């Protein structure tokens, strides 16, 4: 199941004002705690954090909302960001790289994932391979990329650890958005 959480709504609740800029640490922390509350009530497999309508995301908020949500690891679900603009990518990518974290983002109306933050280069390549071809085993990835199986297994382990793919038995599924 996918749960969409509209960050713009949470922002308006958090600051009690019609601001469209996600700035400052207290605001970020307030938005994050509302996301956590929503997830605690949900049993979704994927949480889509929808940034549509957000004008600006500064580094403090990118850190408080996205990085700390991933670091806390309180929810068992995978996170996907949507509705991000190019400059949002920059702030989120910057803070996640700093923490050596990563998250998947989809463009508005699109389905092609983009990884923000840091993952080992092999994991990045394996991620693209799974997004492109659908569910794959480690052997499939090895065949597709010409890697020894041990290398594929490690790349997939890194992705699963960061909840960027969904393991089910021998198969690794791409994140779902619909």
């Amino acid at each position, binding site marked *: 199941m996918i749960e969409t959480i509209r960050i713009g709504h949470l922002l308006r609740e958090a*600051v009690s*004002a019609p*601001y*469209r*800029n996600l*700035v*400052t*640490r*207290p*605001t970020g922390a307030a938005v994050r705690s509302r996301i956590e509350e929503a997830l605690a009530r949900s049993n979704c497999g994927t949480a889509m954090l929808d940034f549509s309508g957000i*004008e*600006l995301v*500064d*580094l*403090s908020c990118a*850190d*408080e909302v996205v*990085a*700390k949500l991933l670091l806390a690891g309180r929810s068992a679900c995978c996170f996907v960001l949507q509705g991000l603009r*190019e*400059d949002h990518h*920059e*702030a989120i990518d*910057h*803070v996640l790289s*700093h*923490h050596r974290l990563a998250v998947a983002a989809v463009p508005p109306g699109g389905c092609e994932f983009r990884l923000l933050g840091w993952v080992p280069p092999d994991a990045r390549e394996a991620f693209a391979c799974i997004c492109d071809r659908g569910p794959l085993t480690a052997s499939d990835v090895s065949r597709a990329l010409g890697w020894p199986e041990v290398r594929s297994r490690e790349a997939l382990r890194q992705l699963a650890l960061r909840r960027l793919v969904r393991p089910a038995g021998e198969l690794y599924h791409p994140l779902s958005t619909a």
Partner: protein
Amino acid sequence: MTRVIEVPAHFDDRSFDSFAEGLGEWPPEEKLLFDARGTQWASPYGLIGLLTAGQALAESRREKPLLTVPVADEVKRYWARAGFFQQASELFELHGKVPRATVTGPSDVLLDVTPVRASEDVHSVVDKISEGASRILHGELGLEMKATLRFSMALSEACQNIVEHAGTSGWVAVQAYTFRRRLGRRVVVIAVSDAGVGFRRSLESTHAKRFGERWGDGAALEAALIQGVSRFRDPGRGQGLAFIKRFLDQWEGKISIRSGTARLSIVPPWDEDVPLSERLSFFPGSQVQIIIPAQQERPQ
């Protein structure tokens, strides 16, 4: 006894050190009179630096200082338009005729002199700047559209430093003008100043040991701006200044931070400033200036 502190005729980051020198030992014992009668021009950095002096005196429980306003009408009008007198009237006993602030159409003052006391003020500042910033940065300075958002991010992070670290309130102002002598191009300048504890005291308990005898205002500025450290143990902290520095590199911009007795700058090729100045005259709190110049067309 009242001591007269002359406000420099051309009051900006360069003349600020002589202004601080005039203040002498801090906090001053005597009542102060800031004499701006002969001031011909003041940058946003100068204006909010002057307010910071007034704020620091109030917080040191010194007698309310006097301020004689500039004689030149156009200077007074600009100070009024920038919102300076409105804020100064609470900190100084103003002497001289103060004009009413009037706004006629788009202005080079992108953000009036604005107090920053809490996170809500940062929200207001960022909201207020967005439209004008795009007009100036993209329209006049030739920066790419996404520069507007980076600029707002920089402004947000710089203002948050006051709320998070200064231990008191501060001021921000943003203006576009032409750097005739130094650069010969239009620039946008963000100035942020507070009368708080400064970088050294803010970082002392967590980072002084590592620097040993080198620890001081200069080392604290280096730790914050170059090494990206923060007084918080949270590993996500300290990224704001690092990010500002990174995008200023792309635009040949300049950031300089003065705190206590030192000033550290990331100096672009067009400027002749020194990267680190130490043993300056003490001035309370921290003063940040970010300069973004108009982009030059690169040869094909």
